[in-house]
């Protein structure tokens, strides 16, 4: 009898196992079939997407093919037709050259002005003879420009607008840009990106600048404004006044321009500086007239400057070479320029103390 009990128990167990197994197999089967059907569905979605992508690509190709001829309006209000994607570009100014390189167009730049010197890839291409120098910023040589057989010439509207008739009579496509405000710098990035079909690169550059401006003006908004004088020459003191591009940067970076009561680039006499008592004095020049120590000594030698906060608190700054270029050229390095000015005017907000002389090594202090 115990055997029968045992057999019975075993049978029950076996039955249970088989039932569970059957249930498992059955349920697995249903899972598998569910997975299968989902896979099939996904596959078809993927196929649909592939189809859409290829049709988008087709559309994009059609758009790209019909993107040119592109009709744009430049800074002088000239309506210019860009016949095809530019492949040989001549730049008339450093800010334009730097923008073209930032858009990834280094291989298409065939000529530039003699002041362009950034980025290092530009200098290499220039040394290799792949980029020709077509004159100075105010002394563009239209014949040298034409000799590069460019399909696009981008120039500075205010400094080189006078060359447009000569360039056009040589059959060249000319676009003039205004390089005199932060807003125009942004629209220049966008316009050049549009002209050269580098749309996403253009958006990226504009975003970087917007972010920098937001960061800096946000950080300094809590501090009281710093009184500043920004000069490019020491004797006479040739200062950025109201309505200048640098005046605009000063207010972004939380400064009050003591030369801001007059418009444009103005000569400020030392007496005025003593009376206005700026907290910061900045002299910026691509190549300095004297060495930095001599410039500091000059400012200290002026009567009454010992009572000027900037001199008394050792806040006289000299920007030269790349540091000066980053600030004064309305190109993509404006991002650095905004930070340099923010750090100089509000070291307390950024917890960064810049040295009094900033040159080609400035990026090491920006810590970004």
């Amino acid at each position: 009898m115990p055997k029968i009990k045992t057999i019975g128990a075993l049978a029950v167990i076996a039955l249970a196992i088989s039932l569970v197994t059957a249930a498992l197999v059955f349920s697995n089967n249903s899972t598998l079939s569910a997975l299968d059907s989902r896979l099939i569905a996904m596959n078809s979605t993927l196929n649909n997407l592939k189809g859409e992508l290829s049709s988008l690509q087709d559309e994009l190709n059609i758009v790209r093919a019909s993107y040119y001829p592109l009709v744009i309006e430049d800074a002088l209000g000239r309506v210019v037709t860009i016949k095809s994607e530019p492949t040989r570009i001549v730049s008339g100014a450093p800010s334009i050259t730097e923008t073209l390189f930032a858009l990834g167009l280094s291989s298409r730049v065939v000529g530039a002005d003699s002041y362009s010197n950034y980025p290092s890839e530009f200098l290499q291409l220039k040394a290799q003879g792949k980029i020709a120098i077509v004159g100075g910023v105010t002394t563009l040589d239209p014949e040298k420009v034409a000799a590069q057989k460019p399909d696009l010439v981008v120039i500075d509207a205010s400094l080189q607008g006078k060359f447009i008739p000569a360039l056009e009579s040589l059959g060249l496509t000319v676009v003039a840009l205004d390089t005199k405000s932060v807003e125009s710098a942004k629209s220049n990035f966008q316009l050049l990106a549009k002209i050269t079909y580098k749309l996403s690169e253009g958006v990226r550059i504009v975003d970087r600048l917007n972010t920098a401006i937001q960061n800096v003006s946000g950080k300094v908004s809590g501090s009281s404004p710093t009184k500043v004088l920004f000069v490019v020459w020491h004797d006479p003191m040739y200062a950025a006044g109201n309505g200048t591009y640098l005046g605009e940067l000063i207010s972004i970076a939380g400064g009050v321009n003591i030369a801001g009561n007059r418009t444009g680039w103005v000569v400020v006499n030392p007496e005025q500086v003593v009376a206005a008592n700026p907290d910061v004095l900045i002299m910026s020049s691509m190549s300095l007239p004297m060495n930095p120590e001599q410039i500091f000594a000059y400012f200290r030698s002026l009567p009454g400057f010992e009572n000027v906060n900037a001199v008394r608190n050792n806040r006289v700054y000299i920007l030269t070479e790349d540091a000066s270029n980053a600030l004064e050229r309305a190109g993509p390095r404006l991002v650095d320029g905004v930070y340099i000015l923010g750090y100089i005017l509000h070291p307390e907000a950024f917890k960064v103390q810049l040295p009094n002389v900033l040159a080609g090594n400035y990026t090491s202090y920006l810590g970004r």
Partner: protein
Amino acid sequence: MHAQPVNKRLRLSLYVITLSIFFSLAFMISVMIGTMQLSPFEVADSIINPNSDPVARSIVLGYRIPRILFASLTGFVLGVSGGVIQTLTRNPLADPYITGMSSGAALGAAIAFVVPFLPYYAVPIMAFLGGVSMLLLSIFLAKKAGAGPIGFILAGVAVGTFASAILMVVLALASEKSHGILYWLFGSFSTSTWGDLQTASAVSMPAIIFALYKARDLNILLLGEEHAAQLGIDSRRLWLLMLLLSSLAVSACVSFCGIIGFIGLVAPHMVRLTIGSDNRFVLPLAGFTGSLLIVIADNIVRNPLNPIAEMPVGSVTSMIGVPFFVYLLIKKGKSFGM
């Protein structure tokens, strides 16, 4: 010209009185106005009281007074030299810059601006060297040519034009340093210091005082070489000496403040048209007239109501000098001359 002695003396004293009143007024206004307006009491306080507001004190003593004094010195030197050189060349159109000295000074200054890493006091030194070397060159050429005053004027024009041509090349190469050069060329007293004043007057005042002392001899020179010789004056030696000294004096001033135009031409004429051509009176009064003109012009430049602020003082001297000059010319054109 047969002017009555009494009438002449009256005119002379009237001219002196008017000049003194205007000059004192201009001087006082100059100290008071500028970026920071100061009352006469504040001005007096900052001069006398060493514990007064340091800002006002450094503005009055550090900037305004040396600036006005330097402007006055330059005007005086230009006026006297202009009178001397007009007499020497017997040419009413001559001015102290006729030797090519100003172009030489401009070239020297421009070179000092362009050569990198020179200290800031290199500009006046180079300007002075440039001016004096062009002066000596034109005298040397004139002596070689031996054509008298005309030869001298032509040599000056040649030397000056040559220096200007080189200056243009320097300007073209100077790129962003060119605004410093241009501003110097226009002339400005905005950074005149006590040190500049000491140096410039140490060179120019002895020369100018000597010229004033020799004014009588200059009158005789106008009568001709023989006449002068009869009175024991070596006219050639005097001629050269006066030219050198007056040019040297101008060179010392403009090396600091830049080329201030028109004063050297117009100031002596203003005096001559009023009181006659006796150099004993013309030269010192031309000096004071020059000072007055420059201080007024500098006041206009520094005027806080002036929207451009700090415009070149040289352009203002011409703008106020020319209309007055033209008025005198039309009114008294017949008696115009040496």
